[in-house]
């Protein structure tokens, strides 16, 4: 097992910059998720680590060993692809044995190792079949077995669950996490599915347009997004954003339409320092209390008025789309209430959970103060 370190890595394809000056460190035994929308450069980053692509500039280290110019076979990495990339003309056994066969491992040892890893992934009974005879989930297990059999220093996974159906995805997901922890292997996992990243990873690196936006623990990424992109990418539905004015008096408060929003002390101090006239108010769908009647509003708390645009029952809760002025926001409400289109409602945002962003740089205010 090794740690992986990227230093100022840039990859250009002609004029297109796929990966832009990326610094990233993945610790030994860590499960790191590279999360980003399609075309963000996350897969390119993975292939750079695998050695399929060479960086235009920058360096890649495994521990303290510079691997930037090493071909893939000398890096000893295992790679699992989204489409599994099994060799269709070989039986499952030969698929898994292929990396060992290339390394000229003695036959007996190959046999032992293939059976060992097949047992680990519970595919011993499939060794005699061809990949085309397997289900998607089984094929994915074979692909993982092939990546693990050579005991790689780093396990790289490129959207390995995207081709599985929803139910299977969740079960393979938890198996994968357990497997990684049991083996203690350093793993880098590329995905566009934020739920997958949250569920699997020790840390998440969010990438957009080839640039790393934030690298943090899942809960930090979720609760304290560094910028509006991260907030708007993570969460289902993602964070809501509403433009707001700032009023500086004896206290500092936000003005949304005709309503004012009280702020927690932390933000009052930050705003007094930054003296912004406008901010973007961000809040998650679950951090809002939807009140149907003004009389329900507790005295001393602040609410924003809105009108229900659509109602989508989800079973455990109801997803409401609400218009605040011209802005649409999505919030979760308990299904015990009856909501209908056109209802006027009052939104009470949990002050501890609301986040403020600078409208010009889109960076969260607390990060703006720190740097």
């Amino acid at each position: 097992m090794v740690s992986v370190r990227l230093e100022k890595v840039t990859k250009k394809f002609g004029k297109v910059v796929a990966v832009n000056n990326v610094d990233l460190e993945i610790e030994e035994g860590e499960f790191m998720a590279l999360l980003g929308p399609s075309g963000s450069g996350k897969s390119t980053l993975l292939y750079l680590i695998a050695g399929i692509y060479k960086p235009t500039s920058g360096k890649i280290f495994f521990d303290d060993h510079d691997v930037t110019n090493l071909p893939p076979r000398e890096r000893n990495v295992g790679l699992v692809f989204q489409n599994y990339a099994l060799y269709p003309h070989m039986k499952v056994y030969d698929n898994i044995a292929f990396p060992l066969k290339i390394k000229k491992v003695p036959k007996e040892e190959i046999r032992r190792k293939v059976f060992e890893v097949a047992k680990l992934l519970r595919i011993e009974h499939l060794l005699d079949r061809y990949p085309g005879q397997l289900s998607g989930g089984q094929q994915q297990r074979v692909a993982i077995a092939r990546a693990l059999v050579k005991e790689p220093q780093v396990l790289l996974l490129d959207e390995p669950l995207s081709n599985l159906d929803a139910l299977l995805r969740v079960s393979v997901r938890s198996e994968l996490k357990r497997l990684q922890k049991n083996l203690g292997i350093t793993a880098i996992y590329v995905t566009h599915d934020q739920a997958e990243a949250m569920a699997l990873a020790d840390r998440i690196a969010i990438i957009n347009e080839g640039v790393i936006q934030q690298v943090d623990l899942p809960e930090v990424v979720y609760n304290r997004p560094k910028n509006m992109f991260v907030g708007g990418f993570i969460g289902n539905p993602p964070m809501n954003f509403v433009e707001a004015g700032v009023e500086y008096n004896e206290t500092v408060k936000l003005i949304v339409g005709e309503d004012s929003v009280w702020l927690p002390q932390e933000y009052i101090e930050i705003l007094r320092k930054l003296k912004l006239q406008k901010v973007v108010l961000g809040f998650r769908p679950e951090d809002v209390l939807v009140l149907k009647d003004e009389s329900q509003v507790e005295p001393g708390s602040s609410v924003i008025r809105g009108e229900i645009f659509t109602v989508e029952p989800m079973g455990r809760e109801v997803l409401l789309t609400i218009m605040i002025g011209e802005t649409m926001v999505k919030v979760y409400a308990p299904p015990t209430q009856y909501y209908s289109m056109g209802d006027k409602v009052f939104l009470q945002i949990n002050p501890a959970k609301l986040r403020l962003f600078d409208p010009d740089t889109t960076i969260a205010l607390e990060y703006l103060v720190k740097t």
Partner: protein
Amino acid sequence: MMQLWDVEVKSRKIEIVLILAVLLASLPLILNYGLLILSSFSTEMVTNLDPTSFRPTIDNWILLFEGRLSVTGGVREDVVRYTINTAIVALGVAGVVVLVSVMAGYAMSRMNFKGRSLIMQLILLLHAFPGVALIIAVYLIFRATLPSDIELARIYSFAYVIVARAALEIPMSIWLIKGFFDRVPWEVEWAAIIDGASRLRVWREVMLPMVKPGIAAIAIFAFLAGWEDLIYVRTFLFDRTLATYIESNINVEFAYMPLLAAAGTLYLLPTILFFILTQRLLLETSTGGIKG
């Protein structure tokens, strides 16, 4: 694997009409070959569509393989030898075409080098060039390189006609097999490279098995091109093949036509056989291991 069904909107009646139309259109062809085969089993040609002229016999076939073709002035024709010669040329062409095309096709599909698209266009241009138009230049090279020893020259003429005929087939074959390589996902090749295989090994152990239907296709086309070739064989080959044998006898005054019909049928056989045997392989486009 999912079974592919046609869209279920066509009516039975239209289908019957269509089948009849297709049969009607191919009737001349079926009639043509049917009469040829029938004539080879008759003492008289039946091409006049008169069934009374059909008198069954297998003497034509016996005579053919005994090589007794009295009409050629007593010279015995060794048909077995010609068949072997034809097979040597056809298999040789197929071998050379496959060998060159699978290497060139892979390079054109997968390797990034300067002038690749230019080469691809030139190859296409080369394909548009008819073989006859090149034959004088090809002949000059043949004359210049021909060994003086007669036995050696005979063997050389085989090698020369094989390579020259293959050269005409190679451009199209490269394009065809390139298409098959293009369809193999990059990830499969990457996986093998990550697993530690060299590029050559990836090509041999992973890529080639995945383009098998394509290899079969170009091999068949090349084989048939070699089998049916007349001009190149006639120009360069010292020996005779079935094509030159039939061609040289067809205009002979005393040609015994039913026997030539047998020779023609024999000449047709591999074409039909090849297609029947490899039809499944040609249709098989399995690139399994990829679901989605």
